[in-house]
């Protein structure tokens, strides 16, 4: 496995189980993740799809599913022409309880050049929004509204 190109962490006042749910339940992901429903049966080898409405945004395959501590899947950008030809990248989500908080570490590796440029700015916003949703019950307004403005 290649060295990660990005490592992002955030500390969230929640439980590992709730955080796992937030990453794997489409009804949850669409609230904080650019209105994308993340769909899979979460068994190793199964497909993963990020759907925004009827649009397939990201496609991948489950590599690791070890609830509630480690989830990994491949990641290919599908909604923009050109990117789908690049080899898939890999995202790992690692969840560790730390006292009253949970540390979420997201590593993204094997990113080809175009995908690298496209996704590098997105994670901090997704993670801030996830933290906000779990801690306050509200996702960030930017994430809620960006979907309304950008899509369709």
């Amino acid at each position, binding site marked *: 496995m290649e060295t990660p190109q990005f*490592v992002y962490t*955030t500390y969230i006042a929640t439980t590992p189980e709730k955080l796992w749910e937030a990453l794997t339940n489409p009804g949850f992901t669409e609230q904080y993740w650019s209105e994308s429903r993340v769909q899979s049966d979460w068994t190793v080898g199964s497909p993963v799809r990020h759907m925004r409405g009827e649009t397939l945004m990201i496609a991948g395959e489950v590599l690791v599913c070890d609830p509630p501590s480690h989830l990994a899947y491949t990641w290919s950008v599908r909604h923009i022409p050109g990117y789908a030809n690049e080899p898939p990248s890999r995202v790992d989500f690692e969840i560790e309880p730390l006292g009253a908080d949970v540390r979420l570490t997201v590593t993204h590796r094997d990113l080809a050049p175009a995908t690298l440029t496209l996704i590098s700015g997105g994670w901090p916003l997704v993670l801030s929004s996830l933290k906000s949703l779990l801690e306050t019950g509200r996702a960030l307004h930017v994430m809620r509204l960006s979907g309304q*403005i950008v899509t369709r």
Partner: protein
Amino acid sequence: MDDVFKALADPGRRDLLDALFERNGQTLGELCARLDMTRQGVSKHLAILEAANLVVTTRRGREKLHYLNPVPINDIAERWINKYDEPRLQALADLKRALETTREREGR
């Protein structure tokens, strides 16, 4: 959040973050080579950045790699900037909805 502001309130530490922005995942040695700072200085600054969660480390064999973690900065932007934009974003969303509704009505 205090940790983040304190960590950012030093030009040397901001240089370190810039160096990681240019190339993520560097070792202590690599960071020392490109900055005009002693090894102890860089090491001390990295510890402060790590404590503020602005830098995250992973291991590659015996090496420790340092990564820029902008998530806390994003939390600050959210706290101090983006929320003031909410009315404007809401206005844009409302405008889009209004225009689309008009178009649908005209289409019929």
